[in-house]
């Protein structure tokens, strides 16, 4: 499973794992019914304490992303469509938060940024009308 841990970014490691598994599920890289790596395997891969993996898997189970089968392993749950929407929204919201913070530093209000987003979209549409999907 393709997960990268960045100790420097201040997000607890178990949460980084939760976020990335959710992302993998949301983006279809992990499909319903697929098995997540055993705790020991992922702990060895990421070089983290096994209890962190346990905590991440527990949280993923509570939020309905995965389920555990007794005596076997941890599997991606069905019904990722609803999750995918929520998750896609969350990913974009993170980018928006960063944009707002940067805008604030450069003295742009949220309204300024909204206007600029529309302007950029218009400029893109004008430049490449054939490439716009749907």
């Amino acid at each position, binding site marked *: 499973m393709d997960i990268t*841990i960045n*100790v*420097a*970014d*201040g*997000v*607890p*490691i*178990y949460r980084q794992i939760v976020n990335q598994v959710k992302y993998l599920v949301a983006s279809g890289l992990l499909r319903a019914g697929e098995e997540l790596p055993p*705790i*020991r395997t992922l*702990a*060895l891969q*990421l*070089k*983290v*304490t*096994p*209890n*962190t993996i346990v905590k991440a898997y527990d949280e993923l189970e509570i939020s309905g992303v995965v389920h555990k089968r007794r005596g076997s392993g941890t599997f991606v749950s069905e019904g990722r469509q609803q999750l995918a929407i929520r998750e896609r929204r969350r990913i974009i919201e993170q980018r928006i938060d960063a944009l707002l*913070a940067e805008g*604030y*530093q450069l003295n742009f209000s949220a309204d300024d940024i909204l206007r600029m987003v529309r302007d950029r979209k218009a400029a893109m549409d004008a430049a490449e009308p054939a490439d716009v999907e749907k």
Partner: protein
Amino acid sequence: MDKIVAVNDLSRSFGSKSALDGVSFHAGAGQVYGLVGANGAGKTTLLKHLLGLLRAQTGSVRVFGRDPVRDPVGVLGRVGYLSEERELPEWMRVGELMAYTQAFHPTWDSSYARELLQTFGLDQAKKIKELSKGMRAQAGLVAAVAHRPELLILDEPSSGLDAVVRRDILDAIVRTVADDGRTVIFSSHLLEEVERMSDHVTMLHGGRVTLSGALDDVRHGYQRSHVRFAEHFEQPPVLQTALAMEGGGRSWSVIHSGSLEQFHHSVLALGGEVVESRDATLEEIFLARAGRGRQPVEAA
């Protein structure tokens, strides 16, 4: 949680120099404990008490509910230990070291030892004194874990080692916990390693515990915030709960403890605004606390 280690109010001095001052430390089963602190902070002294190599002057030390000084057999047979100096008998061959260590440990797992020696590419016929620094650490590691100890104690296991051997050591920690639900206590100056491998962290400074708790709780108690002020500051502005600041002019980056709300208030009072906050990393906390420790007064 089963108590594996219970250290209460332990003090120790060497001559007039205080090495440990009222230290309490507890470890439960199946968890990894990281011990951090500058050189001379007391990490090795604490670990030596757990092994019965030092007797408690005041306070008490219990491992598996026993006193390691009075009952070394009852304690050491269940402990694996890798010292920073990797004191190994120089004249022995690797194979002899294994046989020798095995003799003390009825729970010795020969196939696990063989597997590790093979993974590390250690030649059993080689003498300890002929081994490189990395290979000595690997040999010491096999001797420390092959009896599958209930408690594994590693003192600066990564010190001076290359990335490959460091990885072998981290793998041994993971396997100790994941395969058997056993307990690991390790000291390290590599804070990223501690942050990855520890469930709990204890910070020592000048022989005292300055911070201790579940890693996520410890980290959650400290924030790194980016602050902007309306006016320029030549010197770091005085903010409540701030431990360390860097930056200049209107823009400052602050490591602070306590509630975020309180911090917002103190920034607002100086005509500033908190732009962004996140949990601090262990390294940031460590540096901020160590910096503060140089100042005369510190309330715990």
